[in-house]
């Protein structure tokens, strides 16, 4: 095991220091963690999932099942990271995982001894007695033994972002086929994006010693990349994985912007998620090698043949001192020759085939490689591989090797073609699944389509690139494809060495053996999906890239059906695992969702407000003063101030919709349960609107500003929903109505002035000559005026608090000035700013319904709004609101409550039970919706929905709140506690 002193695509002038399990090691720029480990003779890298068997490096790419490590430390620890795709950087720190106490000595390896009973289905058959022992005893042990790496339970310190991309042609993979496809489409003038998961373009050309146009393939790669980079209509994304194909040509990509560094560069993200919309896509993802299954095939030192070739050619790292090859195809022979040419010692090629092309045999002899035809590896030896047993016609022979390169043929990387549900189809000629139905707009080129030869890949890439461009109207002469040798793969299907000794692993990461497949077959789990779910075949972090096909093939041999009949499980996104943070982008912490401040936010901040989230809004909850013990004392002071003097609050968050046109009245009559066409200009009316199913959707006041113009107010929460509903009514239900809508919620700041002294304050805010007296501006009136010296304003005489009240609306940028002006004007009256808590208290004292009552489950009659409903017209929801259950007298209806024991506290969410009735569902009579401490009454009050409520006023009922330990009696009363006649608001 050593690093060759020449060759490879590493930069020997840039050594990089790293550590694995605390050992200081070194590699070169251009290495992966895996190649650097191999070059340093580190062959034991991980432990398997179930039996904790020692494992090494099996592959050279994203299909790696074994070499998983915990990369980085602290908050940046990344469990289950494939060493084979981890670009080496200076200072890299990695640790092995899923072992205790150490990688070399893992106590949980004892599971291996239990293998005979721990086979497929084991867990389902036991651990059932006693029932209680599962959570307490068995499961905790199983959970600790299972899992792989350990997550850092600390916030991810890195940043992620998303980006949108658009192109004519997206090329997936920058190997020979992908490069030719990209070049051809780009030359024709199409906007091209080419993405490759590797940090170095070229794909297989980086791993093979092939020639293109008579020169080393690298030169072709460099020249092609140079031309692509020079074109303004091309974007090249390296270190970028296309992980999913979504609808209408939308593709998900992850660009690893900073993963090849110890930390992301300043102001750059760790990873960037691309959402790319492509009119066409060309999948040129190549093919992956698959193993042959035989006894002890998981021993560290056993490796895929093309991976072996990759380490030798690309990384100049020879994985073993003495290597044998075990294969069923010609490609592995060429891998062996490459290895020999690079100076590796290749002992023998064991091929299951009884004959191979003489050219291969001759070359093998030239390299002094022993040829064993018709041979099979039946067992291996050593903790790290020290020998293999080969069965031939003449018997069993042991070869002393520390490296075994294996190959059972190739599987095209068809994953992305399956993301719309398409199933791959079996191609007998190459013994592999090739793309079946593909997503619209996607074509497949090169080895991913089962065309393995290099010349074929180049030509196919060119053809698919031309075709995609031409489809989109880009004409360009393709020219001739570069020349290269194809080299036959010549696979003879072979899956499993029947004479294996020792466990023969199909899925190495999940420790699924050939025996497990037999068990599944024996117990009737024979469909590929049942096989997968029963044995966990293909469910590991590699999603079975090296194991699925072999597993299916073994099952097929057991059922006697062909592989084509057996079929394969479906590949789902993502192609390789994707960091959850990347899919979230910058939407985390306080930036999870937008924060909407009100127009007076800065003023409220200065005034010492405590803020509260109400949906996306931040609103002033209350304005505490020094010395106040708790929020209740503050809120009580604010309410008292309003009821006895005057207060002000920002109510800008209510939705405001401007309606204009000849038919506004008609529209509102069909939308509200009550009448609005009859509303006089300059007047305001409270209205309630229903969903078509008869349930209340929203309520609010709507003002008539002119003959053809109304202004609707919605609740804060339903602003968008109501606007959408109105558009639905106008565009879908009644397109003949001539009404134009505009949301003016953002345009207007609105401040409520409430309390007996409200008018006196308002007089000082409006400009000279503006009359706000009762005669011109009575209760439920509206005027357009100017305030603060020429600022345009609308003044509504409405009241949520039940006091004499006005709401003054000014353009949003004037909101803060208005707040200050109102405070100044109110100084003499000790005006008090109040928050939404005090507002809530006063609306409960008045019995006004709010979000807690408008919960989408209540009809107008339930809320005491029944009498508002017109009987002379149709309106949305009227018919459905007439259904029997809506007229059920037992239906919970809104009433008020006060505690029999005046000191008792009420709590929303408590349920009502008849006095002396048992506490069970049969006697549940409703629940408390809203509560408040009423300063006016000096005790807690509540609103609630109670069966037959209005008929039971004066009665008592039990308020049952077991979840907070509450159980008291209350008296049922009318839902208006303060000024039920409404004298104050007309003052």
């Amino acid at each position, binding site marked *: 095991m050593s690093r060759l002193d020449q060759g490879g695509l590493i930069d020997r002038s840039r050594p990089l220091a790293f550590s694995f399990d605390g050992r200081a090691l070194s590699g070169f720029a251009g290495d992966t963690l895996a190649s650097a480990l191999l070059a340093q003779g580190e062959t034991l890298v991980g432990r398997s999932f179930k039996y904790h068997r020692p494992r090494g490096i099996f592959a050279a790419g994203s299909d790696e099942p074994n070499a998983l490590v915990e990369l980085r430390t602290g908050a940046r620890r990344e469990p*289950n990271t494939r060493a084979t795709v981890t670009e080496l950087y200076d200072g890299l720190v990695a640790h092995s995982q899923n072992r205790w106490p150490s990688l070399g000595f893992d106590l949980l390896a004892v599971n291996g001894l239990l293998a*005979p*009973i721990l086979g497929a289905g084991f*867990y*389902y058959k*036991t651990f*059932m007695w006693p*029932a209680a022992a*599962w959570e307490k005893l068995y*499961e905790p042990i199983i*959970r600790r033994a*299972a*899992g*792989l*790496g350990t*997550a850092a*339970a*600390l*916030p991810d310190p890195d940043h*992620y972002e998303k980006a949108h991309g658009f192109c004519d042609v997206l090329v997936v993979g920058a190997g020979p086929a992908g490069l030719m496809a990209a070049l051809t489409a780009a030359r024709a003038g199409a906007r091209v994006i080419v993405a490759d998961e590797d940090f170095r373009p070229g794909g297989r050309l980086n791993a093979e010693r092939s020639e293109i146009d008579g020169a080393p393939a690298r030169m072709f790669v460099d020249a092609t990349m140079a031309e692509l980079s020079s074109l303004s209509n091309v974007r090249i994304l390296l270190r970028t994985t296309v992980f999913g194909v979504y*609808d209408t040509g939308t593709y*998900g990509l992850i660009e690893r912007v900073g993963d090849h560094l110890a930390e992301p560069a300043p102001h750059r993200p760790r990873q960037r998620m691309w959402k790319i919309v492509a009119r066409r896509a060309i999948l040129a993802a190549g093919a992956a090698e698959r193993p042959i299954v035989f006894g002890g095939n998981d021993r560290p030192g056993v490796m895929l043949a093309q991976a072996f070739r990759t380490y030798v050619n690309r990384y100049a790292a020879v994985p073993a001192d003495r290597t044998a090859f075990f294969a069923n195809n010609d490609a592995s022979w060429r891998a062996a020759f490459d290895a020999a040419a690079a100076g590796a010692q290749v002992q023998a090629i064991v091929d299951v085939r009884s004959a191979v092309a003489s050219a291969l045999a001759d070359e093998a002899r030239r390299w002094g490689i022993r040829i064993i035809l018709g041979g099979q590896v039946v067992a291996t030896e050593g903790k790290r591989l020290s020998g293999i047993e080969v069965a031939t016609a003449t018997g069993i022979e042991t070869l002393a090797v520390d490296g075994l390169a294996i190959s059972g043929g190739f599987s095209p990387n068809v994953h992305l073609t399956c*993301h*719309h*549900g398409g199933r791959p189809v079996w191609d007998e000629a190459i013994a592999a699944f090739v793309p079946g139905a593909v997503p619209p707009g996607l074509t497949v080129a090169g080895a991913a389509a089962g065309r393995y030869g290099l010349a074929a890949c180049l030509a196919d890439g060119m053809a698919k690139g031309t075709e995609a461009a031409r489809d989109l109207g880009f004409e360009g002469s393709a020219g001739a494809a570069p020349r290269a040798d194809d080299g036959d793969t010549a696979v003879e299907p072979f899956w499993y060495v029947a004479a294996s000794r020792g466990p023969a692993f199909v899925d190495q990461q999940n420790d699924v053996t050939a025996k497990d497949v037999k*068990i599944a077959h024996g*117990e*009737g789990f024979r469909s590929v*999906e049942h096989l997968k*779910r029963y044995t966990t075949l293909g469910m590991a972090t590699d999603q079975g890239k090296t194991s699925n096909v072999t597993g299916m093939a073994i099952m097929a041999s057991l059922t006697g059906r062909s592989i084509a009949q057996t079929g394969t499980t479906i590949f*789902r996104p*993502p192609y390789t*695992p994707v*960091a*959850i*943070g990347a*899919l979230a*982008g910058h*939407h985390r912490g306080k930036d*999870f*969702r937008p*924060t909407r401040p009100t127009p007076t936010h800065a003023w409220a901040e200065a005034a010492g407000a405590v803020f509260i*989230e109400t949906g996306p809004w931040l609103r002033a909850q209350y304005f505490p003063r020094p010395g106040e013990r708790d929020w209740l004392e503050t809120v009580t002071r604010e309410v008292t101030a309003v009821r006895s003097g005057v207060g002000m609050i920002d109510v800008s968050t209510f939705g405001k919709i401007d309606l204009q046109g000849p038919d506004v009245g008609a529209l509102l009559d069909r939308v509200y349960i009550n009448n609005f066409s009859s509303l006089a200009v300059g007047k305001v009316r409270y209205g309630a609107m229903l*969903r*078509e*199913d008869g*349930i209340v959707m929203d309520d609010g006041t709507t003002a008539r500003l002119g003959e053809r113009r109304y202004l609707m107010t919605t609740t804060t929460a339903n602003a968008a929903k109501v606007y959408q509903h109105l558009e639905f009514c106008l565009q879908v239900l009644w397109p003949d109505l001539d009404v134009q809508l505009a949301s003016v919620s953002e345009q207007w700041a609105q401040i409520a002035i409430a309390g007996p002294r409200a008018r006196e304050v308002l007089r000082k805010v409006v400009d000279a000559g503006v009359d706000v007296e009762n005669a011109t501006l009575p209760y439920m009136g509206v005027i357009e005026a100017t305030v603060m010296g020429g600022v345009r304003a609308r003044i509504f005489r409405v009241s949520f608090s039940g006091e004499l009240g006005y709401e003054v609306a000014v353009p949003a940028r004037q909101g803060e000035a208005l707040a200050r002006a109102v405070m100044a004007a109110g100084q003499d009256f000790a005006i008090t700013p109040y928050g939404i808590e005090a507002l809530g208290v006063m609306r409960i004292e008045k019995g006004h319904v709010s979000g807690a009552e408008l919960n*989408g*489950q209540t009809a107008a009659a339930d809320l005491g709004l029944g009498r508002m409903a017109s009987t002379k017209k149709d309106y949305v929801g009227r018919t459905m609101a007439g259904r*029997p*259950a809506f007229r059920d007298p037992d239906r919970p209806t809104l009433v008020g409550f006060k505690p029999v024991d005046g000191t008792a506290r009420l*709590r*929303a*969410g*408590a*349920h009502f039970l008849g006095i002396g009735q048992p506490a*069970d*569902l049969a006697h549940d009579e409703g629940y408390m919706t809203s509560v408040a401490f009423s300063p006016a009454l000096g005790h807690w009050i509540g609103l609630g929905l109670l069966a037959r409520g209005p008929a039971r006023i004066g009665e008592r009922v039990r308020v*049952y709140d077991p*979840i907070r330990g509450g159980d008291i009696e209350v008296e049922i009363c009318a839902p208006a506690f303060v000024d039920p006649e409404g004298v104050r608001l007309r003052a």
Partner: protein
Amino acid sequence: MGYSVFSILADACRRHSVWTPAWRDAAPKPAYDVIVVGGGGHGLATAYYLAKEHGIRNVAVLEKGWIGSGNAGRNTTIIRSNYLLPGNEPFYEWSMKLWEGLEQDLNYNAMVSQRGVLNLFHSDAQRDAYARRGNAMILSGADAELLDVGQVRALYPFLDFDNGRFPIQGGLLQRRGGTARHDAVVWGYARAADRLGVDIVQNCEVIGFLRENGAVVGVETSRGPIRAGKVGLAVAGSSSRVAGLAGLRLPIESHVLQAFVSEGLKPLIPGVITFGAGHFYISQSDKGGLVFGGDIDGYNSYAQRGNLPTIEDVCEGGMALMPAIGRLRLLRHWGGLVDMSMDGSPIIDRTPLDGLYLNAGWCYGGFKATPASGWCFAWTLAKDEPHRLNAAYRLDRFATGALIDEKGVGAQPNLH
């Protein structure tokens, strides 16, 4: 041979395993007393309880693919009975009680794990709504606790308590809630039903109904006609299509619900957590994968796959709730075909057609209901009337107005 640690040891000592198929891969007979259409959890449970509770054993379960190939095999495995409304809570609490004895009943370890289900709240209004819910649960004999933020922090110290856009104020905890191994539930019911004589017929798609003067007397299938005294539908997302074969229109839309699993990890998340300020819930399987999900995509679909906006929304919720999962990797995501009803609650009832019975409308919550759904559907099939527990799940409730709308969003399935 029954399943036990002894039988396993016995089998391990033999050279060749003697385990026989968990259920017979039966061929359809010409006629049955009852045909249950749909070899998912609900259908198989229905057949099991028909045989076990009502002695009706001449029963076939017809599955168009392989059993458990629908939502039973693609859900996020959560079991709970934390419902709000009187029509729902007793049913789901009965389901929870059946879960608690399921493995001994079936002689199959479905890995029912009562690890606790925690629904977080982020405002006073949400707290009161959860108090209302928790009280309703207690009134129905279920368990519920209202936790303050300190108690939540003690359970899940790595949630974002300090920098959250919508600060966590507490949560509603049902300790008896948890998870179960979804495939094992299917296989356990299949094996137990098979042992009571039920025929489980795979690769047998219903393509029509046999009718005699209006009544349904059997089904036409891809494997020929099969007569039956009664036919029960338990086909989830395919309910409208199959009922349509009998000329019925249902108050149901089929939508796609996506689910997600991460790479395997050592134990990180002990129970089930639901974010109250976004669409995200999560638990960790015994294998170590984080199993999570969120909202439905929101449009009618039979495609069994979703799109990026929902995936992003779910992961944004996850990062907002627990920023520690940023570097953990999504391993696989997939879509299920869910039968969204018009009020978000299920239907277990007779239909206007004699001989045809319906079990549908489970929305995204069918898995937890599996035992009670089978139990109640079996009762309804056997006795021709609903049990008290499914009395509210009537098909005509949309006409009478006796809706069961937990979310309060009305007749818009994509909002439930």
